């Protein structure tokens, strides 16, 4: 298992490297420098600024410096918010975004799995069709449509919940978390249903039934664990989905998280901030995929044995 986890980690490093390289050269080809203001700066000042930020060095040198910077998780100064480093901005937004995303993910798992399993047990019956149609609606309606509708209903018409803003209180978190979780609930329900149907048809379930185990025990002790494997492998894409979704949700509900900084940074052409967020997101996604691989290998020993055999 340790062997396997190290091997996986080693394969994540080239990806990370590719990401940072791509990010670096994307900034470089961007037209306009960070110090292009309304008025041209005097040449001396510009030279001093360039020297301070090492922009006068040759490109390979700058690239190495950037790599070293990222290794130390230093994303440099923001080009737009003076006196702020990108790290400061991220440190401010991250707790908010992570709370939001984490809660949404938990909610999605807590609702999606039971719904999917329930539908699987009623395969091709009205209950199944109803649930799966609703899930399809959940997948089809984008979250930037869901969010205003939820605001219209719960904040404006009914007046139960605030329409936006952020503090760590349930009433402010309910709508954003639900918005973020809805499409994930739908996906998880669909995946669980599909794999559950497959598992229920397999021979070891028939054996369990044949030896007279109670249905409840078959479901919870035998069927559920293998049926959850595809759900776990969905968590990687789900993490990416949360990050993308949080951009929209934070904007609509005016939540000061990383996502809203990202959009603001993109509109302000604050390249260091934007690339900092992209790299951070990339690291998160790679990390999440890595964890998913580990959980998967832990749950299903065939994977790590197969891998070892292939490697030998």
């Amino acid at each position, binding site marked *: 298992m340790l062997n396997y986890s190290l091997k996986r980690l080693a394969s994540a490093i080239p990806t990370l490297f590719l990401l940072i390289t791509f990010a670096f050269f994307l900034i470089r080809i961007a037209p306009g420098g960070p110090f292009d203001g309304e008025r041209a700066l005097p040449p001396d000042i510009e030279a001093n600024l360039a020297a301070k930020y090492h922009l006068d060095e040759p490109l390979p040198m700058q690239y190495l410096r950037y790599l070293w910077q990222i290794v130390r998780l230093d994303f440099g100064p923001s080009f737009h918010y003076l006196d702020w480093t990108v790290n400061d901005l991220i440190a401010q937004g991250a707790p908010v975004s992570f709370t939001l995303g984490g809660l949404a993910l938990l909610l999605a798992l807590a609702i999606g799995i039971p719904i999917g399993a329930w539908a699987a047990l009623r395969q091709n019956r009205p209950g199944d069709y109803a649930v799966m149609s609703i899930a399809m609606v959940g*997948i089809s309606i984008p979250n930037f449509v869901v969010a205003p509708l939820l605001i219209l209903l719960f904040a404006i018409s009914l007046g139960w919940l605030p329409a936006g803003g952020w503090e760590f209180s349930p009433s402010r978190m309910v709508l954003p978390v639900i918005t973020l979780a809805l499409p994930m609930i739908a996906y998880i329900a669909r995946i669980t249903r599909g794999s559950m149907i497959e598992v229920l048809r397999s021979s070891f379930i028939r054996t369990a039934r044949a030896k007279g185990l109670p249905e409840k025990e078959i479901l919870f002790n035998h069927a559920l664990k293998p049926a959850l494997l595809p759900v776990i492998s969905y968590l990687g894409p789900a993490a990416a989905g949360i990050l993308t979704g949080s951009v929209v949700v934070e904007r609509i509900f005016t939540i000061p998280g990383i996502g809203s900084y*990202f959009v603001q940074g993109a509109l302000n052409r604050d390249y260091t901030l934007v690339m900092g967020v992209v790299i951070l997101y990339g690291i998160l*996604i790679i990390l999440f995929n890595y964890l998913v691989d580990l959980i998967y290998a832990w749950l299903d020993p065939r994977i790590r044995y197969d891998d070892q055999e292939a490697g030998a």
Partner: protein
Amino acid sequence: MNESERDAFDQALDTRVIQGRSLWVDAWHRLLKNRAALASLLVLVVMVALVIIGPMMSDWDHEIPDWDNYSTPPSLETGHLFGTDALGRDLFVRTLIGGRISLLVGIVATLVSLLIGISYGAIAGYFGGRVDNLMMRFVDGIYAMPFMFFVIVLMVIFGRNIFLIFVAIGAVNWLDMARIVRGQTLSLKNKPFVEAARACGATEMQIIRRHIVPNLLGVVIVYVTLTIPQVILIESFLSFLGLGVQEPLTSWGALVNEGAQELETAPWSLLFPAGFLAATLFAFNFLGDGLRDALDPKDRV
């Protein structure tokens, strides 16, 4: 054997020798039985027709405001079926024009991703071995990246150009296609029926045309139906953030963005574009699901 006898004989023969049904006829019959998929197909046909013809039939233009009606609700009296936006522009026409852009982006960007994905996947699958390994490692590598964000960065750096949207989204979306096509090619290459064809003396071209391509096509069609809504969604997402299509042109995402800002005073400006967008995505997803069931019999229960 006289004429009538021969007819009777032919008829008897007809009933006995059943015409073999091709994969496609079979799939079509299965699709016809799937009411949800059929309804979705109908919705999409109507939607495309409406989007093409609708703006021509209307008295209003998507750019020119109606000076007498700002933010008026839908009514037959004013002639604005979906009402007007804050600048007095007719929402019916704007929704349909937005639909043109959204559908166009969906189709063109999907074709771009199709082109890249099929070539890449087919090459990797066909050559196999080390080339395949290297090419797929690369795909795995960029798969793990937050590509949505790279698209946003690209839009910011290179300006908000509609052709860039096509290319950027297409360039992001080819990864899945490449994986699917590669896997399919790899498994088809070694199937007994390909071997049998080869043993019968079929040429390489004949094998590709008669056996590989038709078998790829099913998966590709299903995947295209499921990619188009994804792409429409990405474009809407960009437009919603103000990074997509620019005025005076519009798209469903841009309209939803405008509508969301006038939610309290003019809910119709959100509801109509959002409804069209959701209906289209819904129909594409359902059709894709139906096609998958129709073309991939092994998944049938």
